[in-house]
């Protein structure tokens, strides 16, 4: 069954449609840390901010490099962590009246 499934691309970053094959190719090209993998592939850069894919990516990278997952340096977390609407940063008078 595993072989059958591998015929299809396995998406590990659902926000940006990054597949396991994309990751393996990038690692082979020399992107062997999470920050540069993220930027090369846009993995973890979508609305979920890596909640789903980064743990998977850590395991994949650790296996490839023969390291323990705990030895992989985590990427930087940027605010606001969870995507929030920009109107939350405006005063109520600037926001009102435009919502359709």
């Amino acid at each position, binding site marked *: 069954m595993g072989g059958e499934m591998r015929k299809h691309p396995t998406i590990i970053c659902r926000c940006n449609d990054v597949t396991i094959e994309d990751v393996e190719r990038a690692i082979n*090209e020399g992107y062997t840390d999470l*920050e*540069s993998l993220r930027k090369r592939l846009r993995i973890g850069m979508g609305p979920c901010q890596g909640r789903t894919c980064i743990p998977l990516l850590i395991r994949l990278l650790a296996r490839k490099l023969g390291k323990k997952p705990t030895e992989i340096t985590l990427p930087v977390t940027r*605010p*606001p962590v969870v*995507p929030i*609407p*920009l109107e939350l*940063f405006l005063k109520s008078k600037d926001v009102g009246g435009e919502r359709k």
Partner: protein
Amino acid sequence: MKVNILIVGGGISGLSIAYTLAKRGIKDILVVDANYIGSGSTGRCATGIRASFTSEEHVVLMKNSIELWKKLSQPEELGKYGLQFDQGGYVWIASKEESVELFKKLVNLHNSLGVPTRVVSPEELKELVPPIRADEAKAALHDPTAGKSYVFDTLHAYIKACKELGVRIMTFTPVRKLVAGGGKVKAAVTDKGSIEADTFIVAAGSGSKKLMESIGVDIPLKNLPRHIMITEAFKPAFKPLVIDWDAGGAPYIVQTKEGNFIIAREIEEEPEQPLGSVRIDFLPKVVSAMAKWFPWIKRIRVLRYWIGYYVTSPDHHPIYGPVDEYENIYLACGYSGHGYMLAPVTGKIITEWLLDGRPSIPQAERLTLRRFKEGRLIEEFAIVG
């Protein structure tokens, strides 16, 4: 370890210099970076590229750089590795009459140097940027030669091409200091041992000043934190990078090739603040400025907010070329926020300095470190994007 040429700094400048030197047949080039490639100001930039500046030096250099961006994006150069130059232009919006007058003067300067900018009406602005609410605009300056290039595709292309030409790249290798003696730089001391070289190039961005201090050369650079954010992605909405000239802090917005909007505005900052020191007041300031022109922006979400340094020189122009104290070291730093767009011409200038003794663009020769000692500073007053 001993190499022919050691380039300290694996940002866009260091890679462009390495690539240009290697293309001229130079062997045994090593690029070292303290972190991953593009981890400094390069990877934090807004990716805009333009020639519409306010000094002859900048306009000429950027015009040359744009020609090189176009050439590099061809399949036979770096296009085959994914480098794209999207010539979507820049528009600067004026909401004051005096700014319109200034734009007319700038257009004369640009046109005289071969950059075809022009002043456009609010109606034309609306054609260039359909989702804008342009009623408060008096006019806009349109630079059709400007554009953008996605930074990590560009870095990837340079890395591939450099490696193909035999350039070696060492990441996660911080250079702690340089060692000099007898009027020459001898070695760079790194965490992975000492590296000797015949020629050194310092393209170390925000680390350049400290590195040069280790051999007693003072370069007058300040690292100014600049704040920037990115939203979730949407289908392509408009091509140009849009700047509000009159808002203070020159807020700007650009849509990336993935569809995200990058939005930024300068806020008052102290130099040398750590890159992690985010400021909650940045977000209301940037959002309110952009919501004036793009009311729909209030409904979209911010994904990330980060800080990058404008490595700024006293006259906001780069510092290029040799230093008086040592015969075998060259500087390529202090771009004051424009290192990414300058990178192709930076490679050309430094390569020519090394191999031909002087750069072929005469304006570049005015940009050595010596100008600060001699008081020949260059005037520039449009330092954004």
